[in-house]
């Protein structure tokens, strides 16, 4: 990225165009602010000049002089007072309008993050790549909003700078040159220093990440038990100290460089200062009034300050523009496969994997290779297998969250790709492991929508998973908020209850196919048995898939597919697979051993 030029002007143009679409009035306000705030600093420069002019020529008529003094400061107060008020008021009144522009960007990102293809969400590289994009909308002072604020402020600065530069340059071009030299050298020095810092960026990032690991580990309460029981504390503190020293070392390098370069900029400042004072003093010797002397002096100081601010602002816009560009790249990226035009099928589903090969994006390892198998209409299929055999991946493929690397998946003979993506999702009710409720009402957690809620339907689903009484125990019923983060009276479900709530969500959706991914891992034996018992009811008339480590769950399924590290290894019903005396038989016997001995004994 270091050498890559990025089109700042294009980014800025687009930002302006967006602002134009969202708030045209803002442009008028910028012009207004430019005039008011651009002229404002001028009063403080002119006041001493006028006043000293009177004082210098202080004649015999004291009263007259006093009158003049009063008029000058009176005029100053009226003008500077009103400009000062307007400058602050306009600026602050517009501040929030600019924040709004950023928040609208956030909403766009939000929608995109929730609707783009799921595969990107599991892709760490992808998220890293766009990390800057997300950062660019995360605060008032940086990225998108930071630049908008600068674009608002800078025109006024330009006006002031032009007025003052004209004033100084008209009389003393050399002084103006000195100031410019000072600024240019300052910029170059800063650029070199930044370049150096940038070149250290990778090292700094690495040191930061390593240090951050220890920061997070010490802060994470979840490590508390193991730390205490196994005595890791001293090791961690020692390592942490080391990482901090490494991190600070890089700061020291950068700062040393900055200091060395800083000496250069001091020389430029010295030249500018010497020119200013030298030429002005010579001017006075040659007859310049003290009034002019003081005006030019304060003009020089004001101009230097304004120019420094301005050059910093330019550098800021340049730097933050990079982030904004990333943001636009993210917004523009086509991350949501729309799919074909087909609508969701209204019939029972058959899912066929045809020569499916799959590896996760950015990895080399095939999770499946040439997988062929079919889940027939109305069938209840159990998927079992050892850890890492790809059971959960299978669900992600089936539901369209990921697409096969090679081969295809057919739904009732129709290739997955022909379906409109959103329509495709409609056909599946899935209960994943570890999904937790979100801070919406119970009703919303089940229906996943805020309007068009069918209350009776929701209650019925909750009833069926055994949460009916629980919901009735709340005064607000379905409108009871969940979690405590939003509403301190929110309810918190236990692991088992949450799991049941997720099953209710699946039921409410009433899709043609039901998939349960390890739904009982967190449940005790009785709760587990209850879910097994209801499974028939839950999936009545639908094609369904049940994934579990617990082989006991396979018995109420029509077919069992056993996956090992190499794909589908065994397929058939329970009796067939037991007869096969293969892996399934082995697993089942091992797991059932103690139960079996007991029942036989």
């Amino acid at each position, binding site marked *: 990225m270091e050498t890559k030029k990025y089109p700042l002007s294009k980014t800025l143009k687009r930002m302006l165009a967006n602002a134009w679409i969202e708030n045209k009035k803002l442009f008028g306000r910028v012009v207004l602010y430019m005039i008011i705030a651009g002229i404002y600093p001028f*009063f*403080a420069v002119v*006041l001493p000049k006028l*006043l000293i002019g009177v004082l210098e020529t202080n004649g015999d008529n*004291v009263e007259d002089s*006093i009158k003049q003094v*009063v008029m000058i*400061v009176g005029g100053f*107060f009226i003008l500077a*007072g009103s400009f000062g008020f307007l400058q*602050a*008021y306009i600026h602050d009144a517009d501040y929030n309008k600019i924040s709004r522009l950023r928040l609208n960007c956030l909403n766009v990102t*939000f929608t995109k993050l*929730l609707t783009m293809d799921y595969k990107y969400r599991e892709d760490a590289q992808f*998220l890293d790549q766009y990390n800057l994009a997300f950062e660019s909308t995360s605060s008032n002072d940086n990225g998108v909003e930071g630049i908008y604020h600068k674009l608002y402020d800078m025109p006024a600065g330009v006006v002031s700078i032009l007025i003052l530069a004209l004033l100084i340059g008209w009389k003393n071009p050399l002084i103006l040159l000195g100031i410019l030299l000072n600024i240019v050298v300052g910029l170059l020095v800063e650029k070199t220093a930044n370049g150096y810092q940038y070149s250290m960026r990778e090292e700094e990032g690495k040191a930061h*990440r390593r240090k951050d*690991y*220890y920061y997070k580990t010490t*802060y994470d*309460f979840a490590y*508390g038990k193991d730390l*205490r*029981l196994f*005595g890791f504390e001293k090791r961690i503190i020692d390592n942490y100290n080391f990482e901090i020293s490494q991190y*600070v070392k890089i700061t020291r390098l950068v700062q040393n460089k900055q200091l060395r370069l800083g*000496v250069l900029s001091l020389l430029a400042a010295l030249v500018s*200062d010497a020119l200013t*004072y030298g030429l002005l*003093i010579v001017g006075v010797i040659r007859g310049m009034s003290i009034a002019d002397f003081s005006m030019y002096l304060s003009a020089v100081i004001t101009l230097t300050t304004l120019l420094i601010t301005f050059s910093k602002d330019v550098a800021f816009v340049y730097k933050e523009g990079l982030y904004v560009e990333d943001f636009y790249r993210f917004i523009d990226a086509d991350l949501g496969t729309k799919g074909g035009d087909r609508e969701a099928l209204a019939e029972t589903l058959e899912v066929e994997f045809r020569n499916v090969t799959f590896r996760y994006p950015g990895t080399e390892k095939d999770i499946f290779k040439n997988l062929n198998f079919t889940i027939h209409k109305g069938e209840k299929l159990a998927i079992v297998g*050892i*850890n*890492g055999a790809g059971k959960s991946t299978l669900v992600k493929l089936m539901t369209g*969250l990921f697409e096969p690397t090679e081969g295809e998946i057919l739904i009732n003979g129709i290739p997955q790709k022909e379906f409109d993506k959103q329509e495709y999702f409609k056909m599946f009710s*899935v209960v994943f492991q570890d*999904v937790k409720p979100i*801070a*919406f009402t119970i009703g*919303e957690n089940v229906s996943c*929508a805020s309007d068009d809620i069918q209350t009776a339907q929701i209650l019925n689903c909750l009833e069926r998973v055994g949460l009916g009484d629980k919901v009735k125990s709340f005064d607000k019923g379905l409108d009871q908020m969940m979690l*405590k*983060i*939003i509403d301190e009276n929110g309810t918190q479900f236990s692991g088992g209850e949450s799991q049941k709530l997720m099953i209710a969500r699946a039921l409410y959706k009433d899709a043609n196919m039901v998939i349960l991914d390890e739904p009982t891992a967190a449940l005790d*034996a009785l709760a*587990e*048995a209850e879910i097994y018992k209801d499974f028939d009811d839950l999936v009545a008339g639908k094609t369904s898939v049940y994934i579990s*480590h617990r*082989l*006991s769950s396979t018995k109420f399924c029509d077919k069992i597919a056993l996956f090992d590290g190499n794909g589908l290894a065994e397929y058939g019903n329970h009796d067939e697979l037991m007869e096969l005396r293969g892996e399934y038989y082995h*697993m*089942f*016997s*091992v*797991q*059932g*051993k*103690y*139960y*079996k*001995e*007991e029942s036989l004994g």
Partner: protein
Amino acid sequence: MYVSMRQGNNKEVKKIKKVFALAWGISPLYIILLIMNSLIGAMQIVANVVLPKYLIDELVTSRNTGSLLYIGGAIVLSNLIFSFLGKLMTRNLAIQNRYMNEKMNQALGIKIMNVDYSYLENPYYLDLKERAAFACTNQSAVYNLINNSADLLKSLVTLFSMVAVMLTLGPVLFLVSAVTIILTVVVLTSFSSYQVRFFEKIIPVNRKYGYYLGLGYSEDEIQKDARLYGMEPMLLSRVVNYTNEFMGEFNKYYKKQGKIRGAVNIIANLQAALTYGYVGIRVVTKQFGKQIGLGSFMMYVNASIQFTATFRTLTDNIVGTKQMLDYLDPFLELMDLPEVKQEGDIPFEGDIESVCFEHVTFCYPGSEKEVLSDLSFQINKGEKISIVGLNGAGKTTLIKLICRLYHPTSGKILINGKDIFDYDYDSYIKNIAAVFQDYKLFAFSLLENITSKDKERVDKGEVNEIVKEVGLEEKIEELPNGLDSLYGKAYDVNGIELSGGQSQKVAIARALYKNASMVIMDEPTSALDPLAEADIYHNFNNMVSNKTAIYISHRMSSSVFCDRILVLDGGSVSDFDSHENLMKKGESLYCKLFKAQAENYSEA
């Protein structure tokens, strides 16, 4: 930002003292540098106010080239020196500041590692920690506090110097400045109370907004459901609602702030006008005191302007300091938590011969609910005990009590006849090896994870033996660096990633390596497939043959090979007997649980 100016009570002074004591402990140099920096800054301001007087006086009167050169040179030189000192200070402060910041964060991390464990499961402290971390990292509260205090010093020194300069002209100039400052303070104070009320109202809205917006960014399981259940419209509408709500509020807020800042500008210009007017008149006439020259005119005017500007900075410093102190409340509250009192001093010797619960009742801190009530039972050396019960029966809690992570609310736990809290902690905990459901591994090498020791101090043969027993041998042979492979990618991208099952095996290996006389396993095999699970159980019995062992598992089959089963029901012991005897009691909870699972295997 101008928040309430009411301050000065002892509590805040105490807080500042505390932060400075912490900072001084970390880096005295930093504090010294800051003080130096403040003094240099104040001196620069004084020089800028006083020096031009001599230049102008010289210009007005003698216009002697030699002395003009001399004074002009002095001004230019003083600028140069101060700029150089400024840069030097910036460098040193930047380095010290980063160090300070990291060490301050670390101090809290170390605190967290050392406080009584009970805090770590209390949602209040979890929230407190989040807020403390937010204050330190996002709001840079420690940094701002220390720097604000240093600026405060600079402001005070400057202020006194300016007053001294102004008073040489008599009291009027000072009084004019003071009156306008009081006016400013009145205006700002009226705003600050509005500000406090406003933020009290808006912070909860912002928090809610943050939660809903965060759902989009969150990387957990909700992303799958959001797509499959089409939740985006519901989520977005909530985000938009909150955006509108707080934007509406902020609109009012900023307009008000604009008016206030505008008013302050008016007052500042009024002060400038009055100052210029008054000092100007003093040049014109001696009617109001000693007549002064143009050089003094500039000096007094600048002193007055500087006085006001510094006073503004000073109020900002005070307000900022106060605000940072508020932000730091959670940090300080955490730093104040008592560290584990290493109660007990009897060294634990020998093995665990017996574990005896005597009428143990337990409620989590801050809760009234008895998770365990009046629990009494005894486990003897070498016994293999399975603890069984429904979700929420208190199984894990019981383990935490044995590990001294919590104190029983009432009753006692005796090991070898003595209350466990009477033993010296280190020698006690050596005897207990536990694998929790939510075990954690660290970004160390696998070897270090298992042994918690340096490579050099480890008997590799022993580790290899254990690795084999837990079934990790093959996996480790696959790894180029074997046992020296770094676990996880959090610390280094070249670290290795293990599956849930493999990680769990590492955790089990760690417990075995500890070679304690009691081993506790809380759902040790939940992430394992049936074969790996069976393997572990099979080997386990061999590995812990001469030890006391406690298992918790939802897999009822695992209790068959245990000597006795402790059945927990609603926080008390409903049965404590062998598998056979319990199965004979047809209606027992154990029997029900067992049959519920066994049924599914019975036909095999």
